[in-house]
């Protein structure tokens, strides 16, 4: 069975850990626990007629990039950039993450997840912001770890792109 390492990157409290928990364990909790360092989970996903074991690295969400341990990204086959739809500033953090990955000569497939889509009336991301990212070639999926909307789809989509690349 093929195994792939993927990372979830983004600002703090955007819902990276919740997305993984929803995807791996089908559980969501309102309680917020900040991730220290890195947390690793795994899940086998069936994609393009084969099983793929995803090793999912949930990397601590910090906004000070200088203290990131870039070695956590080493060997990743792809990654999610996760932003919070109610916090526009989290998009800027995601952009910086993307730049950081590219600086390491890692031209990897990635998907931008705009999380917390269940908070419909609190969404503050403007259409033009997302449109700008789309024009940059970013693939965007709106997700909700709370309701589970598009979570499985997001992981399957990234897996598909990983397999396409390899």
């Amino acid at each position: 069975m093929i195994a792939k390492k993927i990372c979830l990157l983004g600002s703090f409290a955007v819902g990276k850990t919740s997305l993984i928990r929803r995807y791996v364990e089908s559980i969501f909790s309102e309680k917020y626990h900040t991730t220290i360092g890195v947390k690793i989970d795994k899940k086998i996903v069936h994609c393009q007629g084969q099983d793929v074991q995803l090793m999912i690295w949930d990397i601590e969400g910090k906004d000070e990039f200088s203290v990131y341990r870039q070695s956590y990204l080493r060997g990743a086959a792809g990654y999610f950039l996760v932003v919070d739809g109610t916090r526009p500033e989290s998009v800027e953090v995601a952009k910086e993450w993307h730049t950081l990955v590219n600086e390491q000569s890692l031209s990897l497939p990635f998907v931008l997840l705009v999380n917390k889509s269940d908070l419909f009336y609190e969404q503050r991301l403007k259409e033009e912001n997302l449109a700008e990212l789309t024009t940059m070639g970013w693939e965007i999926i709106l997700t909700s770890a709370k309701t589970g909307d598009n979570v499985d789809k997001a992981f399957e989509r990234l897996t598909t792109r990983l397999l396409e690349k390899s």
Partner: protein
Amino acid sequence: MLSQSDTERIATTISEAIIQRNLSDKSVAQALAPIIDDAIDNAIRHRPQRITRVIYPIIGPSIRKSVARALADMVQNLNQILESSLSIRSWGWRYQAWRAGMKYGEYVLLKTLDFRVEQVLLIHRETGILLHAENAAGFQVEDPELVSSMLTAVSDFISDSFSRHPDSSLDNIRVGDFILEIETGPSAILVAAIRGTPSKQVSQTLKTTLERLHLVFSREFDRFDGDRTIFASAADLMRPCLLIKHKEHTRPGIPWRALTMLAFFIGYGFWAGYLKVQNEIMYLHILDALQTSPGYVVVGESRNMPRLNIEVLRAPTSEPSREILNRLDTGNWDVAVTEHIAPLDMQEYLLPMIPSMFHLGRDTNFTRDGQALVVTGSLKETQRNNLEQNPLLKSVYSHIDFSSVEVYADQTPEEQQKNEWRQLKATIENIRFQFQPNTAELVSGEEQKIPALVANIESIRSLAEKIPVYHWQLYIVGHANSAGTDTANLRISEERAKLINELLITNHLDAELLLAWGAGNLPNSRLPEHQQRMVSLQLIHSPFIPGTEYP
């Protein structure tokens, strides 16, 4: 097909073109990487000597690193042995080693070599993905994929945080008696999960195995894309890492060394005891020899092996102590005798000193009757006992004659009589006679106190003649409570006192020794009302010795 001019044109600009492209993205490096890999691979296969020359500067540091690792292992073993030497567990091991008939060092070594490699993981260094796992029989597998990834993360974290050298990496993790021994290669990591304390053999085997794995799978490591199928064939290479070291059961032999030590200690104990007894016997023998020598009195001694100090009092005509000692076998004792020469016959010499020696007064006199000491006068019983049991007097005089001395108790007869007086006085004065309200009639049963009172007054009279007490009298005081007028109270208190007075006279007491009067009501009395209807007694007398205070 390029023309000659095109080739020349590209040759002049290719370097600048590569540099420029490299500034915009990394595609040139990505494109060249597989070509360079193949080129190096080809060079190693066909021209190894040239490669050896090229990598020679790298080999030196690698060897140094390997030697440093070996030294670290040795220090770790030494640490374990030292800890084992100083811990509580070590005493258990010493006992077990003694039981097993082994040297302690051998036993510790045996204990430290007891281990089992329960799982070996081959991890892709770059991705942290588990490539292959080999388990010992019966080992409970704990999700090796997650363990591998997390181990890689931890290792990266440790290296990033604490190491300044890019090649340094985490070597092992210890949790209780469980150790993860980690060997890091250029492309892969080999991890052994070990229960117990591993020997150097484990890390050596891991090193060798990892080198072989790199040799066999170097291309697969470099081009790893997540497909782990090929690494199933690594099982044969990894299985030798599942080392196990069993305890060797040895038959307990006869612990000659311990038995010899034990015999030595027991022998030493007996010998020390024998010497102590011999010294005690010799000490008593020396003292006895001096004490029984004519004209000698031992007055003091102290000892601190081998020194024995003896202080003697001896007659001038008696034999000097050194001559007595010369004839004696003093054993291990170094005897020093301090002599006090008595100027007279010892019996005569001591005679005037005895009163001060025993703190005796002038009432006690001492004389000689031949060899006996005669005591006359009077002395207390305890003083008599002291004289009788004193070793010095016993050694000087044939016996002590107490036949002419009056021995009394520790109190003198006078003191005894005075104490008896005080007790009787207190007994009499404690007697109260209670009366019925508004009458001079005794409460029922109070008259029964009369016989005892009469007997005590008779005793007092007898004692007064012996002590002597020349002037004494019993005051009989009548009292009334606050009910009624003062006149009436005075009258009824007088009647009450006279009643007791008459009762005592009726019982043959001399009327001159009694004095009765009424005190009426005492306004500040704190006694309850019914108790104030009474007659009290007071024994009044002159001092025992004229001119002194009243007792």
